[in-house]
């Protein structure tokens, strides 16, 4: 008998989208077809999509060191509720993930919690201070494949070039938090809203100047380069032209940059709209949506950044940057872009899994493939009112979204199940 059957969903394989049942046993897919037999557990997928579970290459789990905001356990719960089967933990923890013991600690915490795969990213520079390289080989041996000083850019050109050479040699990915520190000392996007509010703004060139410079260095070194949280239309153009020239460049965009623009700050100046890079103009949002549809931006990444209530419950410019997003990423992307099924799973699952070499994840359902899957209903409308995360700093709470995760399967186990079906209330 099968362990698990996902019954009656529209299954997105690498060649088709059709209503079939998915039969799972021993942690992998063993059957795809109409009317599979009984199983120990069944999930009603009618009216929903079944595809590769989502992979987030940009999660701040906050453990070790900032567990009052989040820890691996609460981040894992939020992630599976959002349909994720794997997340990459960012290294700006305390201490930073700049050596193998910390990397291993995070991965082991993920295993202990046992909900989904937690993978560690490594810092580029020691302590993320930007002055000397971190123990990159040591991190590589611990399984780290993506390196970033996220939270800070590698602003020094010489350091960036050296890092690209080193990481490029090993075949890893260097991911850049593209915000020039000398232009990035503001509270929100530099534009008419910041001018009205009297807030120091962060111009789009804070992002594009870093990316432009980095692309020249990438051309020289050949290292795989990934632009994190793209927020400006100008960056999209740079990436498109780099790809045309055949450079090994990928890029991610967050659900919130696809959804909100800088006018969200007007009115109440709510710090729930404060993040880095900031929300930019409606034209930028439109460019990001188009770029995701066209594949110029390869994937969605949440930049899930929990902060405690007392940290965000302050005047706007004093609040730390960041919003949570794991639970609502798929819904937000669906609401903002209405991607077709294949593009949706490419962006949410396949491309991010490829970026960090997670061969068990992001794979379209087929016999023999590990069962890391999500059941996602793209038509249901709902209003998020609570969260699994330790922190409440989400701009989606109280906002209607279209699309919801019905169930998440990791390694053949059901780790999230809302019990919903097409007829469920």
């Amino acid at each position, binding site marked *: 008998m099968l362990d698990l059957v996902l019954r009656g969903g529209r299954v997105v394989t690498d060649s088709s989208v059709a209503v079939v049942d998915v039969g799972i046993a021993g942690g992998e897919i063993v059957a795809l077809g109409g009317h599979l037999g009984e199983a120990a557990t069944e999930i009603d997928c009618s009216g929903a999509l079944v595809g590769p579970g989502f992979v987030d290459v940009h999660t701040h789990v906050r453990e070790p060191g900032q567990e009052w905001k989040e820890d691996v356990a609460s981040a894992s719960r939020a992630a599976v509720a959002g349909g994720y089967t794997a997340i990459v933990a960012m290294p700006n923890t305390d201490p930073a993930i700049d050596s193998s013991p910390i990397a291993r600690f995070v991965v082991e915490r993920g295993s202990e919690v046992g909900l989904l795969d937690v993978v560690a990213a490594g810092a580029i520079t020691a302590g993320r201070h930007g002055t000397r390289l971190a123990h990159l080989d040591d991190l590589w041996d611990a399984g780290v494949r993506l390196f970033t000083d996220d939270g800070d850019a590698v602003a020094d050109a010489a350091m960036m070039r050296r890092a690209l050479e080193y990481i490029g040699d090993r075949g890893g990915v260097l991911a850049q938090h593209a915000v020039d520190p000398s232009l990035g000392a503001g509270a929100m996007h530099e534009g008419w809203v910041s*001018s009205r509010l*009297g807030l120091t703004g962060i111009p789009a060139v804070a992002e594009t100047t870093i990316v432009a410079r980095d692309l020249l260095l990438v051309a020289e070194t050949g290292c795989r380069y990934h632009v994190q949280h793209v927020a400006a239309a100008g960056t999209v153009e740079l990436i498109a032209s780099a790809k045309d020239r055949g450079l090994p460049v990928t890029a991610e965009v967050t659900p919130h940059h696809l959804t909100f623009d800088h006018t969200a700050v007007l009115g109440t*100046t709510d710090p729930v709209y404060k993040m880095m890079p900031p929300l930019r103009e409606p034209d930028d949002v439109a460019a990001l949506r188009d770029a995701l549809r066209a594949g110029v931006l390869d994937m969605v990444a949440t930049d899930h950044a929990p902060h405690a209530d007392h940290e965000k419950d302050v*005047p706007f410019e004093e609040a730390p940057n960041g919003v949570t997003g794991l639970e609502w990423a798929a819904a937000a992307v669906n609401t903002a872009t209405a991607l077709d099924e294949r593009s949706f799973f490419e962006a949410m699952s396949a491309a991010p899994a490829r970026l960090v070499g997670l061969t068990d994840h992001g794979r379209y359902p087929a016999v023999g493939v590990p069962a890391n899957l999500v059941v996602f209903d793209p038509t249901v409308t709902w209003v998020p009112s609570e969260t699994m995360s330790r922190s409440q700093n989400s701009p989606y709470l109280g906002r209607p979204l279209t699309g919801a995760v019905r169930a998440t399967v990791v390694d053949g186990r059901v780790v999230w199940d809302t019990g919903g079906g097409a007829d469920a209330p």
Partner: protein
Amino acid sequence: MRTLLGTEDLDRSALDGLLDDAETFLEVLERPIPKVPALRGRTVATMFFEPSTRTRLSFERAAKALSADTLSFSPGTSSLSKGESLKDTVQTIAAMGADLMVVRHRAVGAPARVAEWTGLPVVNGGDGAHQHPTQALLDALTIRRARGTVEGLRIGIVGDIAHSRVARSDVFAFATLGAEVTLIAPRTLLPVDLTGWPCDVSTDLDAVLGDLDVVYLLRVQTERGGASVFPSLREYLRRFGLTRERFARLRPDTVVLHPGPMNRGVEIEAAVADDPRALVLDQVTNGVAARMAVLFQLLGGADA
């Protein structure tokens, strides 16, 4: 009216109503007993997280002239320096029985936050570079009393517009009252994007000076957060300062305003500062009356 956070949302009739009440309070302030019992038993808390003696004293004078009690908070000697959050601080003072808070803070939007956290009527006493609505009211009152009306006047606001909450409050208030406003500043001191501002812009003071009915001078600092925004104070005086020569070119009935304190020799030459057409002291007197009008409207009615 529950809060006064800025002038952008005040329509013509709200502004006129506040100015009319302020005129009444000017008369009260001239009486032998310059006090009325309108807010007796109410407590006005002045929460000044950014140092300012003049504005705080002006609000306290206004509160007392309405017979309200005052609670005065300033951060120097308080637990805020021990790391107490803004939220905890204002909720503590609210729990002591404050009926209204006047809040000045260096962070944009702080007074709005305070209103959310306490549920009290809040007057913005200045939040970062965003708004300072009572300043705009007393400025409008001063202009109205000097020239009979604000409507149709050509008002030039000169100086560091980019970092000025006074400029932002004044532009909207004056425009709503029917004035034609021009911002005059070097490009480095103008906001990046003036979309939606109901005013013109000029980088040449001499070109527009002769047409102005009101010259409004802002304070200028050449250092803002460590970054140099203008070569030197002397350069500023030469291009944008109200020198004796420029003053002589003004029309005879043109008046000069300044939010104070004046940098004599920077935005205004010392001799000009003391001319009777410079209405700075009137602004101070009008400030108490304007603030009385605001406190009265927020606390003294059925919707309070």
